[in-house]
């Protein structure tokens, strides 16, 4: 019998790793991810989870130990946030290019400086190019569900890639919500045992991590990119299988009241749920407005995204970090994804919610109104922001 329990997203993620019978956990604590390694340590100490728990001395070592464990065929899980993700930056590229299916939860945290333990998407946006499958969670149920799904997809023999699950720091990691936990039997049906075809084994000696001279590096990178793009099919299959067993079907791009929408509002992560309230209110007043949320971030869901937005006149993108000198990163990518489309909406972007600054319904209301204004009349500001004190007109060029 599946149960409905109250869990923080951190604990939901840990519970998913437990139900997935993970083999090796190698993690370093960092706010706001700490509840994940703590909960997992408890589970191991009490015998609820039979796993090797490696209390490493840094995030760089955390992910490095995961590489070694995955290389011998262990199901591997780790978690981090903000600075921790930065410290393992060189290692994340290696995990994907060496095709180790590690699953990592990232409790999105603002990057220093100044030091901030609070949430935004700057840590996530700093790892766009690492070659991991990446998803953003809106709520604690997704934090649980997508972790299970991540093992299924990453470990698939046609994929063999690491998966990163983004959950908003504090807004999800430390917030208790109802989560429906499935039966262990259902999880076992969904998630086959991990069988790694290239496990390090004295009976079949292989070399992992040979170096790539110029004559071969390009081909290696192309092969990796092809595999990464091809993972989309298994990503979708994984979600179909998930729905078939657990009853909830996930999609790369979530649509909320997008029927006949003239204006679309794009968010990622937990702020989506607050934004939905504003959409409801505006729809109530007769506005043709809808919301889309990017659940699948990498590989970018070009097909679904283009199909969903094609009939809108305006697309307002909300970013939770600044890409210095460039603007909103999601805004830039989304605009680029639509450049060749005919017809395409006018894309505008606003930035807010940095370093733990909360966004209320009023703030989202402003974003949507202001977005509409910019779409019509353009903007004189260097950066369009919400909830950040100080004038932005007359700055820059």
């Amino acid at each position, binding site marked *: 019998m599946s149960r409905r329990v109250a869990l923080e997203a951190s604990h939901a993620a840990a519970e998913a790793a437990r139900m997935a019978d993970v083999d090796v956990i190698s993690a370093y604590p960092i706010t706001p991810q700490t509840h994940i390694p703590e909960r997992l340590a408890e589970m191991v100490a009490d015998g609820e989870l039979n796993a090797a728990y490696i209390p490493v001395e840094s995030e760089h070592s955390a992910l490095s130990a995961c590489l070694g464990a995955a290389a011998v065929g262990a199901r591997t899980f780790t978690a981090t946030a903000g600075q921790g993700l930065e410290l393992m930056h060189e290692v994340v590229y290696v995990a994907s290019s060496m095709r180790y299916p590690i699953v990592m939860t990232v409790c999105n945290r603002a990057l220093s400086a100044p030091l901030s333990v609070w949430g935004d998407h700057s840590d996530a946006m700093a790892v766009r190019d690492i070659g991991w499958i990446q998803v953003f969670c809106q709520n604690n149920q997704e934090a649980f569900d997508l972790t299970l799904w991540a093992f299924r997809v990453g470990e698939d023999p046609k994929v063999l890639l690491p998966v990163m699950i983004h959950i908003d720091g504090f807004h999800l990691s430390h917030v208790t919500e109802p989560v429906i936990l499935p039966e262990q039997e259902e999880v076992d049906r969904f998630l086959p045992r991990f069988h790694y075809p290239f496990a390090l084994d004295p009976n079949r000696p292989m070399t992992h991590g040979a170096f790539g001279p110029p004559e*071969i590096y390009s081909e290696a990178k192309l*092969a990796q990119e092809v595999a990464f793009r091809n993972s989309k099919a298994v990503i979708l299959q994984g979600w179909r299988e998930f729905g078939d067993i657990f009853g909830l079907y996930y999609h790369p791009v979530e649509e909320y009241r997008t029927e006949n929408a003239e204006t679309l509002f794009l968010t990622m992560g937990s702020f989506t749920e607050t934004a939905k309230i504003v959409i409801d209110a505006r729809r109530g007043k007769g506005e043709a407005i809808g919301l889309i949320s990017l659940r699948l971030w990498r590989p970018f869901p070009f097909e679904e995204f283009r199909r969903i937005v094609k009939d809108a006149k305006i697309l307002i993108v909300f970013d939770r970090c600044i890409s210095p000198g460039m603007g909103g990163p999601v805004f830039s990518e989304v605009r680029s994804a639509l450049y060749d489309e005919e017809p395409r909406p006018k894309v505008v972007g606003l930035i807010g919610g940095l370093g733990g600054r909360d966004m209320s319904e009023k703030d989202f209301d402003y974003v949507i109104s202001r977005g509409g204004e910019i779409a019509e009349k353009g903007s004189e500001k260097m950066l369009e922001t919400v909830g950040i004190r100080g004038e932005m007109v007359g700055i820059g060029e």
Partner: protein
Amino acid sequence: MADKLTWKDMQVGNIVTEAGSASFRRTGDWRTERPILDKEKCIKCALCWIYCPDAAIKPSEGGYYEADLYYCKGCGICARICPAEAIMMMEEEEK
């Protein structure tokens, strides 16, 4: 050899599944001198065999140890440490 491979030929994760596959490389081409063994003097102590960094000296017929010229880089360690002074380094001829 590497420059004939296409991206399709790359193994998952660029893992090399064939052990010792680098052994086709003829490091003997590096040589400027080669070791010459005087079997009359050789006491078959195997010091040259154990001290060859390239494992290029191999047990040969009659209990001797001789350099495999396919691999021998001509470092001269064998000649230097031979207690019987049975190995001499001779310059490779111009080809």
